[in-house]
């Protein structure tokens, strides 16, 4: 007996929706076994990582707070991934956005109007987008692979952050810690809005989700992005300019990552320090695939991944697994969702032992 793949005439819509769910369930099962083998409490780990954040209502705000940047970044990345433009340096654009926003804050300590938040956020978006112009330029003008350039720039952004928080932007009253001065009250966004537990970032993420939904499902630009990704020659034939698509998808995904960065800085941290990068930019890649590159899917997937973030921290203190455990579950999930793709396009059939 062996397994044979038969190409489906039409991609299966059922599998399109079923495989991400199956990937999450399988991740839980495989993860439990893996951690048991490694000598930890497998069931306990799984319970803490996946279920405690859902069951304990005091964790919800934490989940929503972590989901917001993941969703915002992943919305942008999904657009690029549809065009097969691989921006894997969102982490760097996230840092660059936060730095650009913090530059406004750094220059305006005396401004007391809350409106200062607006130029900060705009600067954040522009900063992220600016960081993405480098790979966009290199890709369109010199045909340099964007996978490598976007990624290299993460390391550069990280060093830039290190330089600023230990050098020119170092808080003079910070006891020599590598951090900037705290933002002033005017420069801060609230942790949550209107007395609810909902963080402002999640509201923005929700609005953006609706916008991206319209963009990808109905607009000519969304169509263009899909054609460029599916068949570059057909895109040229249809009159779409691939360079334009590369520029716009990289700038949009960079801008989204920058937005997530400045939102995180002003609404959660209130300053920048060496611990600011928290892997959201990389995890958002998983969010994007788990959400099947669809804005609504991305929103749901962002919450799922945020749960593993929060749960990973819980598990660290309660069942004493290392901090990297969440990462393992996330990688497993990405592998399984990619493996599940095959079921969308192919039918599995067991055939007799004849080759």
């Amino acid at each position, binding site marked *: 007996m062996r397994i044979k793949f038969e190409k489906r005439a039409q991609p299966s819509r059922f599998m399109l929706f079923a495989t991400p769910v199956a990937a999450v369930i399988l991740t839980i099962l495989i993860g439990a076994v893996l951690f048991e083998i*490694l000598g930890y409490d497998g069931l306990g780990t799984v319970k803490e990582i996946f279920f405690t954040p859902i069951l304990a209502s005091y964790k919800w705000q934490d989940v929503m707070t972590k989901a917001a940047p993941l969703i915002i970044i992943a919305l942008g990345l999904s657009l690029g991934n549809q065009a097969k433009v691989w921006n894997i340096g969102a982490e760097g654009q996230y840092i660059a956005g936060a730095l650009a926003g913090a530059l406004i804050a750094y220059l305006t300590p005396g401004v007391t109007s809350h409106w200062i938040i607006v130029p900060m956020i705009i600067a954040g978006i522009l900063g992220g987008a600016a960081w993405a112009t480098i790979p966009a330029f290199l890709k369109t003008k010199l045909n340099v*692979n964007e996978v*490598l350039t976007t990624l*290299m720039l993460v390391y550069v952004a990280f060093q830039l952050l290190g330089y600023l928080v230990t050098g020119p932007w170092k808080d003079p009253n910070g006891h020599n810690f590598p951090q900037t001065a705290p933002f002033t009250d005017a420069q801060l966004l609230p942790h949550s809005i209107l007395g609810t537990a909902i963080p402002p970032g999640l509201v923005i993420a929700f609005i953006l989700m609706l916008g991206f939904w319209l963009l990808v499902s109905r607009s000519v630009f969304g169509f263009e992005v899909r054609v460029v990704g599916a068949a570059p020659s057909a895109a040229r034939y249809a009159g779409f300019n691939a360079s334009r698509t590369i520029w716009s998808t990289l700038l949009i995904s960079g801008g989204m990552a920058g937005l997530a960065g400045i939102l995180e800085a002003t609404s959660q941290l209130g300053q920048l320090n060496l611990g600011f990068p928290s892997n959201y930019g990389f995890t958002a*890649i998983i969010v994007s695939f788990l959400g099947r590159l669809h804005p609504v899917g991305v929103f749901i997937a962002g919450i799922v991944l945020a749960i593993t973030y929060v749960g990973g921290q819980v598990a660290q203190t309660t069942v004493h697994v290392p901090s990297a455990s969440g*990462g393992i579950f996330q*990688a497993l999930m990405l592998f399984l969702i990619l493996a599940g793709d*095959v079921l969308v396009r192919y039918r599995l059939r067991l055939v007799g032992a004849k080759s």
Partner: protein
Amino acid sequence: MTIDFIISAIVTVVGISTPILLAATGELVVEKSGVLNLGVEGMMLVGAITGFAVTFMTYNPWLGVIAAGAAGAAVSMVFGVLVLSLGSNQVATGLALAILGIGLSTLLGTSFTGMIVPQFSSIFPSVLSQDPFWRVIFGYSPMVYIALLIVFAVGWFLNRTRAGLVLRAVGENDQSAHSIGYSVIGIRYIAIAFGGAMAGIAGSYFSMVITPMWAERMTAGRGWIALALVVFAGWKAGRLVVGAYLFGCLMTLELYAKASGFQFLPSQFWASMPYIMAIVVLAVISFRDRAGSEAPACLGKPFLPNS
């Protein structure tokens, strides 16, 4: 600048370049077969912790290196199954492998933090290896010589042997190779496993030679540099050596900058230098005449036989 300074600089450069050279050599074979495996960083980290752990338990660094290679090959097979047997996207799957490797190595490594392992002893008599001048040739870890041997063996294999010709053919035109009767999938599995083993060994160099201890994410992005190096070398084994030593110079500069004179620029500038240079190099390479490159035509494309 004294002769001593130059010699110690050369020794540092050669030492620090070796892991990227090893990893890039493995990736070269993978890419020549038509597969792009972006998971080098992850496979290196898995190799680093495995090599360290096995050496720690057996007190034998050779066993450690072998185990590191085996572990690298083993995790690369996860990538192989997805990409080759299930036809998944190579970029995304490679990234997943990188993330998995980072997580897995951290998880396995927690109990080894702070430990120290025995190091390789020199294969040359100390008269040579410790000599202030001759150490420039004889004063390295055995892994340095092994890495160079492997690069030359791979160059010979790719260009002079029939098996190498078949491997290149698979990367050049998978459909043709399939219709002549070569097992495209099988050959690519072997190439991916070799790439994984090389990345694993490269990783173990960090935890066993550069510093004989384990630290989270200790490869610090060198796996990505190795990927850039393959492009830089135009997919030619010989040029890998030149490129690796060039990057080695940049990384050495960072070390020296931290230790001494270059205070006019912040240390973060030097630390980001290899990455900035990798970008510059990729840009310059694409400027240059493409005829000099031997990029495989099927690189990154999934192969699904229609029979």
